[in-house]
């Protein structure tokens, strides 16, 4: 296993990290596993495709697409999560499953069935020499952006007032409501942020994997596994599990190419048997 493969694993893990931290945040606050997260990610990728197609630069798309997804997130929160907050969480989860199906189809109706390539910006299109290995610069960018995002998110959650409110509301919605935290507003922030993170992941993935209608569903299952392995609802656990899964997946590709698709499932089963509560110790 050489350095390039490790970096590939990190790049995949970085995308999973962005996605799963948004998912874990929403789960922490609303208690709902958002099955439309894969569809939001795909929507982000298509927004990026559309933006670059309209002549915007990729860097601008990196801002526009997450903003667009934040608006979609706000619609989800106001239209579904808030209205259905008295319903059982599993029912709301099923609604998000339906939303995912609708978004998937709407995307195909708008942009068609084809796979669309999105080119990386010129500045990061080449390769960079990393300790003697030539490695695509764009994938390094993914890693850097994801790590920066993770650090910013953790710092923000730990140190800002809103972060404090989010942590409090995730811990105990009712009590924090009694103590004067506007849980609905906190939830709006979190779901918008979760959507924006999905959009960011989608935009970053667009030049990496190209944009196609099946991309949301295939990554959704992996992200769900990441969240379970990390310990449902734990942002830190999800981030750690994402990087772990990315690396393990690439190791599987190198050492067991014929069975590499099974690696995430094997990881899930091992973690379940060895530590049923996930890395962060929250009960599944």
């Amino acid at each position, binding site marked *: 296993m050489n350095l390039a493969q490790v970096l590939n694993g990190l790049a995949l893990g970085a995308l999973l990290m962005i996605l799963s931290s948004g998912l874990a945040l929403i789960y922490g606050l609303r208690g709902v596993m958002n099955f439309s997260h894969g569809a939001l990610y795909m929507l982000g990728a298509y927004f990026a495709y559309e933006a670059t197609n309209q002549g915007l630069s990729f860097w601008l798309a990196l801002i526009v697409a997450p903003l667009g997804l934040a608006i979609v997130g706000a619609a989800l929160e106001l239209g579904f999560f808030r209205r259905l907050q008295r319903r059982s969480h599993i029912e709301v989860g099923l609604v998000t499953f339906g939303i995912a199906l609708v978004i998937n189809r709407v995307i195909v109706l708008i942009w068609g069935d084809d796979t669309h390539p999105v080119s990386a910006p010129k500045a990061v299109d080449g390769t960079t020499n990393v300790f003697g290995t030539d490695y695509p610069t764009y994938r390094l960018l993914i890693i850097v952006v994801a790590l920066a995002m993770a650090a910013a998110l953790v710092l923000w959650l730990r140190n800002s007032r809103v972060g404090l409110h989010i942590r409090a509301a995730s811990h105990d919605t009712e009590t924090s409501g009694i103590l004067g935290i506007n849980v609905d507003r906190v939830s709006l922030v979190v779901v918008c942020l979760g959507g924006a993170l999905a959009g960011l992941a989608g935009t970053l993935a667009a030049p990496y994997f190209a944009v196609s209608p099946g991309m949301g569903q295939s990554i959704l299952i992996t992200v769900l596994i990441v969240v379970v392995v990390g310990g449902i609802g734990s942002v830190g656990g999800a981030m750690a599990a994402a990087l772990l899964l990315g690396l393990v997946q690439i190791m599987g590709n190198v050492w067991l190419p014929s069975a590499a698709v*099974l690696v995430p499932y094997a990881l899930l089963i091992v973690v379940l048997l060895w530590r049923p509560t996930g890395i962060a110790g929250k009960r599944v």
Partner: protein
Amino acid sequence: MSSVPTAVQTDDPTVVPKPDDGGRGMLDSRVSVGLQRRVVLRGLIVAAVVLVAGLFVPDLITSSYYMGVAADGVVLGIMAIGIGFLANRSGLISLGHTAFYGGSAYGLAIATTHWGWSPTSAALFAIVGGTLLAVAIGALVIRSTGFGFLMLTLAFGQALYAVSTLTSVRSVTGAFDGISVTYPSDSTTFLGLSQADLGQPDTFWPLAWICLVVVAFALWLVGRSRFGVTLEAIRENEERARFSGYNTYLPRLGAFAISGACASIAGVLFALKASYVSPDVLGFQLAGDSLIATIVGGFTILIGPAIGAVLYIYAQGKFGDTGNLELYMGLALIVAVIFLPGGVTGWVVEQLRRLRTLTAGRKEARRS
């Protein structure tokens, strides 16, 4: 279905024995199973009437297209009522029943095609194998609830999908190409039905219909038995049931295994009818669609999911070509969950009940 535990036993000596086990439990079968003979008899009569009446469906539906819809709907319906049973009795929503459906379909295809078994013994093997798979997977996932359970069952189902598509098992499963079911010789039959008969909706229908009615009746019995009541107690409050001295693990595992057995039966029927099995039977699409059929049909009523399954197959034929099926499925799921908590059948029953109280109220008013 005879392996249904009649009462919940526990080996743990610290657990207080249940009060009504003392003395009579073992001898009086009515107490230990919790079923009254009169109720069972009445159910049996209803089931027999429905069974016989359903056999005349091919005479009513002359169009072979709609007969195909009905047959496919019934096959999927058997899996759906299994999923619905688990959801209703245990409150567990599964996205992984494709593992047992597809697993048993592959079991039948592999046993007949590669091992040269007769379709009858292959079908038995596949159903037993699918059920054992449900026990094995259930043992791992049944402790979790809610989203944990949903995601774990999904992961196991998708893991099996990934296995079926591996190139290293191409000689067995055919990978993405799938596998055609080939009987050992042209004269071999499944319970008197040749491969061509099984492929025809109207000759296949009696087999599927009998399976559906038998499965539904068995689930009804299980639900009314002491085992079913124990399941409900666990669903309502697992902790309290445990503190009351019930083993809460085995009944849940039992419910999962029963529900997996339903999916296995459906998978075998599918493989017999289609004579072709591809990784689609293990896919995410089927996992989601069968769950949506279950929910839209409504699982508060035992046969609701089967009706949902027939509706789904009808919609598949109508919208599948344009590709908008997914859109309508998503919308139907959203509407059903938000506005029709009991699904279509639950809504109909609710309206009937309202109508009955209305007319009863009017009669009352007229009398006074």
